[in-house]
């Protein structure tokens, strides 16, 4: 009986443990479509939770592309993919450190050739916590 209880405790320990806190990063910077030679500003709100990553992408004109992305984040390696509101799919891969995310991406537009690009997004400082009276 004691052994059974011990096994139960061990088996349930991970479930009982407090979940790791997620981090949210705001990144803003330039993105260059090297195929069309277009350049614009890209905004990425990145939520990291362990090795899982989710992001919301917004891109300013002349580039286009906004939507939800998800992927993985392992030891600085960041990989995000998603279908955007404009109807095409984007895949971003790069490395994120304390300062910035730099990498490459490609977009698959239905009926057209793949387009390639690069991005350099700086990590924005976290907003100051709200003052409590």
């Amino acid at each position: 009986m004691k052994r059974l209880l011990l096994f139960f405790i061990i088996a349930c320990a991970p479930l009982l443990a407090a979940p790791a806190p997620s981090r949210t990063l705001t990144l803003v910077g330039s993105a260059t479509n090297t195929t069309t030679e277009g350049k614009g500003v890209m905004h990425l709100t990145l939520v990291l939770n362990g090795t899982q990553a989710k992001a919301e992408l917004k891109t300013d004109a002349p580039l286009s592309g906004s939507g939800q992305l998800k992927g993985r984040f392992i030891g600085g390696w960041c990989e995000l993919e998603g279908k955007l509101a404009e109807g095409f799919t984007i895949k971003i891969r790069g490395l994120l450190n304390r300062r910035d995310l730099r990498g490459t991406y490609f977009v698959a537009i239905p009926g057209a050739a793949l387009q390639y690009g690069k991005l350099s997004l700086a990590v924005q400082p976290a907003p100051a916590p709200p003052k409590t009276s």
Partner: protein
Amino acid sequence: MVVSGAVFVGLLAIPAVQGWLLKRALTGRPGWRVNFDHFGAGPSGVDVSGLDFAMPGVEAKSAPIVIELTPWRLVSRREIRIERIEMSKLRVLLTPAHLSPDDATAPKAAKASKPFGGVLAQVPTTWPLSLGTAQLDGEIVVNDGGRSVVAGTFNVHGGGVSAEQTGALAFELAVNSALLPPGPANQLRSNGTVSLSLDAEHRATRLTLDGDLTLPDYGSLVLPPGKFSVTVEPAAGGEKYHAELHLGTAAVLVLDGQLDAANSRLTGHATIRADQSLAAGLKVKNLPAVALDGGADFSLDLRTGDLDVNLAGNLDAHDWAALLPQLAVVDAFKGRLTAALTRRAGTLSVNRFEATLQGATSPAIFKFELTDPLDPLHPPQRPLARLTLEHWPLHWVNPWLAPARVQLGPAEFSGQWTLAPTPALGLRLTPVYPCTLGPVALVKSPVPVTPIVNFTFSPVAELSAQQLSVTIEDFIATASHEDKVDGRVAVAFTLANHTLHATGALHGTLPSLLAGAGKNVPFTLNTLWDITQSGRQLRIDKLGFSARRDAKVTPYVSLRFLQPLSLDLDHLKTAVTGKNAEWLRLRFQHLPLAWVSRWFPAWTIGGDVIEGETVLHSAPDGRLTLDSAVPWRVADLSIAVGGRTFFEGGGQMAPMLDFGAGHGTFRLAGMTVESRTGERVTGSIAFDAILADRQGSTAVAFDVDLPALPHSAETFGPIHAVVRARLHNQTSRLVAVDELALKINNRGGELFSLEATQPFLFGLSNNGVFTTATLSPLRLKVEALPLAWLRPWTGKLVLDGTLQPCDLLLTAQFTKYQLRAQKPVHVRDFAAVFDGREMARDTEFSFYPGLDLDFNCVPLPKFILAYSATAYLTDGAIDVGGRRAVDLDLALNLLGNTGRLLPNSLELSSRVDFGPLSAEAALAARGIPRAGTLVTRINGGLLGHDPLEVWGRLEGVPAANGQGTIPTFEFSAHGQLSPEQTLTADVALGLATSPQPTDARFEAAFNLNQSNLVIASGFHSSFIDVNGLLALVTAFLPPAKSASTPPPVAASSPPKPSRLKYTPKPDQPLWGPLRGRFELDIATLQYAPYRIDGVRGRLDLRDRELVLSDLSGAMFAGRWGGRLQLDYRPENPASTYEVAGEFGIEQFDSARVVQTVFRNELASVEAHLNIKATAHSRGNLPLDLINRAEVTFTAEGGPGVVRLQVPKQDAIATAVVFGGSILLSPELRALGRLLKKFAEMPVDTVHVAGQRTTNGEVTLQELRIQSPQARLLAHGRIAASDEPLMQHPLEMSFDLAAKDDTAVILSGMSLLRWKPDDTGYRPMKEPFAIGGKVGQPDTRPLYDLLAKAVGGSKGTWGMLMRKLQDEVNKKKNAPPKKTVAPPSP
């Protein structure tokens, strides 16, 4: 009478009468005419207006002319004094053809003019003349053939001519001529002064003319401004003349002459000299250097015009490369010209003319000589001159042959011709003997077999205004091995209609070319032709060619024109004949092909063209057709290269050509090639052209069956390929490909295909740029291919795995090209074994390839290429054993042109997981750790325009000693690449060592061309944990070949590097590509448990040395310093490195060392020491160098304290002994006093000297401690150990000597000898040993010795203490004795 005289005079004074009389006087002569508006003459002068004067060849018109005279001078001095002459706007028109009309008709020979008295004699002396001032201006025009050839202006002013005075008239003259090149400034201009001196009798005594002369440019000839001077002076019997013309310093013409007035004979000598600076004034700068000088003696009879001239001159010419670079090989030449000319009775005769050019260093000679006198105006119709060319080197043409990779050996050309004028001003050159050219040998040639050939031929050349022709009737070319070609050749070019007519016939036997030395010639060659081309019409009267073994058998090859053919080259058709006609027949019959091998070294070609016949027909409308009624068939064809047979089999094709009505079709139909092993290619090529529209199309269709390619049996099996292509020219510059398909199949299906699903264009745009446009992408498909198929060609590398189907699309839009993959390139189950060693297994990789190319190419007229390309490798992944090992994304931008390709920018992100990779044996053997990840990114410019950034992190890598993982390592560099490919960057390194992180910052320059990293900066760090760094380095060292399990290490001890058995043979120094110097600035350098603070110094890194110099810092409260040099000696593989160092610590606190390891331990020796050490080591690895270091050291110090600590047997007993509060035996009380002294014994000096051996053992040669009451002398050893030095085992033998109180105590214990030594110390009778550890010496042997002395027994210190405890216990139980002192509280 008087009246009538007065009337007459009065009439004469009337201007109208004067004018009538003058007209009457002048117009009486034939051709003379004079008109004027007014003519008046009086005693004081003449005035004329509206003058219009004409005489044969001369016409003159003038504005008013004024001549003022001084009549009284005529009366008083009998002198005509002209005070002023003014003639303005005088226009003189000369027509040379009309001058002296009577002279032109009179026979010149018979005419002899009166004697010429000289120039000065022309000044009238009958009426002495003087001139006050003169002012004349006007223009002069020379007409020829009804047009003006010369037009000039002149201005003369001056005067002052009178007896015994030199008058001077200045003149300016500017002349234009239609003979000169047009140009506003292109005039002959001269200005100067004419001076005339008269004596008292008004005789001219000297006439001089000085001035400047500017000659006009004539083409590229721009002569420098000249200065001239002419002097005429009286001489005995006549006059003498001297004239000079200087054209700068480049050319000088000097003439000296003398007039024999009595005989009217002018004799003299003229010289001319010009050097190469004359050419400096030429517009054409690239001329050879030429200098000439010469002279002429002349004699001229002024009455008859008879003339004798003897000319001689020399020429020096060199630097032909200035003319053309290829002429650099041509020799310098020296030339000589001699000639003799006479003119008798109006007839000019060249009696002698000889010109030679002789090579300065070569025997080349050019010679032209008259063999008979020549009347240039009436040349005879017979040979009169000889032209000789001898020994002209043929290799002078080599520079022109160089582009064809052909060079001729030494050979010469010689020939001699007679020159004879022919009717119609022609010239005929007839060889005196046959010209020779030889021996012609190709010393360099792309063709391997070229015999040495000698040519002889006699070219007869006829040049006339109508035709140029060369005829050679005896052409012979011979070589060794009976090679001979002979025949006749004739070429004539008619200038009037530009018709070229060539005839000839040659017969050749060429064993050297067709068979090789000593072998039978396979066939002889015969050819003949008679062809005329006039404009775009070609007429072939005869054209034949045959190759045959001998005359008895049918030719192997024969080409024969059956009847004369006239061809319209524009439309490639013959004249309309209204019937079918056969023109030409080309036939093959058993033509052997083996002779072709002679021309391709290492190739062996066999077989025969066994048959084939092609006939040229014309249709009734003139359309031409080439039909191969009998296909060209090759049998037994074999092709071998380097002894390896590539093909054996046969083939056939049927060339067909159809021309007419501006439309042509060429077809190679029925093409079949079939090997003996069954490989078969069938197909056809057809080319259609509409000449008028410049439209052409081509269709290619081939089917290829390859059942037995090399290694196909064990790999892909029989192959079938299909090629289909159709294209036409859209415009003159653009080609449209209507169809393109290439498919390669094996039995399993399609392997590879390239297909254009819709037409595409390529060609040149309007601005000449190569352009391509696709409506839909070209599609390249590769089906699944086993990599094992590559095994026959990969040698020792055995590959396995399967390339999954690929689908690539190529799109082009003008100059932009895109290559995209429909799905990733993917290889499954990849494995590689090289030379029996496994390199990879159970591996899978995939990636998306991509290429964006902006390709700007202008091929004509000059090839220009510039392109920008970005190559992509995205979504790259390598999985090993089903686990992701590598993620990779790469975008590399390149810029290029015809000469260079430069990387422009790079975006790279990668993640490497060592865990899966370590499963690959080859990588594991190279030291890849069994876990951990490395992420790296490189972003930025590679040409220096944009910064380049590198960042990476290494984490989770197991430590080599098995103790957890090494600290996370981060590195970053931010810099810029210079045009010289040097990356200068700020580098930051961080290692998350605990409790304090290691960091470093420095600036480095990385030369990408030389692959070395050069630093010249400060090396800054807050903290460096050497153990952490060693852990980082050792984590990537290859594993030991003889693996041994490391001994368990106490958890509390710091991680220490493992002992490595593996000794690599490095091919570069430990510091890799790093070069330069660091100025070290390290706040703390820790090598636990030791640390140095405030490290300063300098690190120099060279190819073969690492030098640490000027080191300083603080260590154990002392001042640390030193120097170290590490030499890299790759030539000594046993120990690649040799290190030598010197270190010292001043005022080093020995207690701190002990307490660093044993925090609560009091040091046995506590003093401030000065330590000096020299170290030397050899090895291949850093740890080798440390472990094998030989060190010699000394330490000097004092004063201080020595503690011979009591063994911790029993604290209470010890306290008793020390305290002495308990009354014990005198011996024990003495021991108590002694122990007090030993517990903290002041010392004056400490001296240590020793050595560390290569195995880590330390020999203490001398330890000497001097205190006021004791002296310790010791020697021994410290055994090698992996532990810190303070924990190394200690074996020491001590000699103790004492004096004063200590000596009394020890003497009381009978431990000392009676006799003191020279210093007053009394040595102990026997030495004692001390063991334990360096930081915790075991003093029990000493105390055992003392115990024996106290107890007088054989007991040890422990036994003594137990006895003492017993005594104490007894004392506690017994009633206290009375003492003099009260008991302790």
